[in-house]
């Protein structure tokens, strides 16, 4: 059983807020989803085979062929919400208080 406190705690972890009006509905829906997903508990799995190695893994490439400096800068900076010229601003996170 999920409680309203559980949902609020998950929301805090996920950095979203759930309004009072939504909390009841979310908790109820969460319960019915968990009841469904909980079917997994009855599943008995044979794990004797050990880990299976996927056919594609550790796919790295060699460093090289860098893009020209500044090639993407303007396009990426243009999406930034708070910008003055080349200065991109976010909120101050360390204070002197």
């Amino acid at each position: 059983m999920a409680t309203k406190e559980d949902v609020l705690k998950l929301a805090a972890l996920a950095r979203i807020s759930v309004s009072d009006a939504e909390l009841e509905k979310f908790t109820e829906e969460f319960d019915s989803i968990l009841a469904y997903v909980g079917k997994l508990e009855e599943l008995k799995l044979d794990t004797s085979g050990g880990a299976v190695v996927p056919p594609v893994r550790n796919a790295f490439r060699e460093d090289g062929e860098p893009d020209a400096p500044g090639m993407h800068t303007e396009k990426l900076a243009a999406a930034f919400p708070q910008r003055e010229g080349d200065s991109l601003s976010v909120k101050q996170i360390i204070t002197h208080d």
Partner: protein
Amino acid sequence: MTKPANELTIVEAAAALRAKELTVRELWEECALAAHAKNPELNAYLEIFAADEAAIEAAQKRIDAGEAPQLCGIPLAIKDNILIEGKIASAASKMLENYTATYDSTVIKKLKEAGALFLGRTNMDEFAMGSSTENSAYGPSKNPHDTSRVPGGSSGGSAVAVAAHMAIAGFGSDTGGSIRQPAAHTGLVGLKPTYGAVSRSGLIAMGSSLDQIGPFGKTVEDAQILFEATRGKDALDATSVAADFYKTKEAGEKMRIGVPRHFLKEGIDADLLAAFNATLAKLEAAGHTLVDIELPTSGYALPVYYVIMPAEVSTNLARLDGIRYGLAKRGETLLADYVESRTAGFGPETRRRILLGTFVLSSGYIDAYYRKADRARLTLTAEYDAAFEKCEVIAFPTTPSPAFKFGEKTGDPVSMYLEDVFTVTANLTGMPALSVPMGSVERESKQLPVGIQFTAPKGGEERLFTIGAEVTA
């Protein structure tokens, strides 16, 4: 020509362009005209693009020079989570309403090289989460076969655009059935390729171990042309593989078709099941063999999916925080900036899945849910591998029932999730699956299309095209 240009298939349009019965501009204009005329009612497109004169002219030149691939000059509908440089890509979310793609996805790059044109970006469930387009932040798309019904989702907008002849063909993405289910509900062919067959670079990520980009076509041949034009290894997607990576043998003309009867005993619409059986009988009469197969863990595939997928969703969508791009709300603190942006930007289903994903990954539950589901995924794959010893393809109905009405399932998330009961396994196992139309069922004197789905081992798309073409022949 016997039909309007916007109703042509890729193969027909390519032939007409080469026979000079049609110009690229005329084809574009007929499609754009239909798109503009029908979109107010069907809401297939979130944005219909203006004509790209240079691209139209270049495509015509290549065709006139006699050296153009079949896709040259063909107008396509593109799901709103596939990046096209300079165009908005919102994933039908308020979160990315103002986000302009800074680069082309690999699929778009390949389509541009082939000379294809883009009619617009299509509606979808927000961040590809849903089976009806009812989770779009911009209103649902409507099924052209009955506008009181959903077109399926999440790639519903692309399906509607193609089915209503507002584009010649289109692309969607499929994480748990998001191409195949809308294809079935709108009478189209839809392919979920082998995991890694098509690069996901430039696809807005949902569930990274499940996502694939794939085509919608009016015919199997069209879907095949689109798949072949976009497949291949890509340095920008480490999970992508070359076309010959999996050594799946081509099946002969006649195949053994595996049917998991034990899994089709309940929960399926009677008329739809009758259409499924009739289609199998037709294939048997054509010389294919039906084989009973057992997939004992299939009944758990959907719960497994609803653990793995939200876990990946909550992880992928953590990057959307209002700092670098997208919706940016500002509060008292930096944390408030995140929380307010994410709360205002994400719709209810997205938030629900983020919460669920956060839950199954939390320290107290990760073993019971996520790790268990991950192991079950291997079991499912092993069962399919074993079944493929006895058959070349496995057949399922694509959906348990025909297209449902708006609002019918929005009150109960689990009933909506059950739409994907037959489609999620292909994403969990990474195997390719193709939905092709198998006739229609009648509801309230309207004919609603239904689909049959074939699955093959990884790299076995050829088999799917062969058997799919036979169904629709």
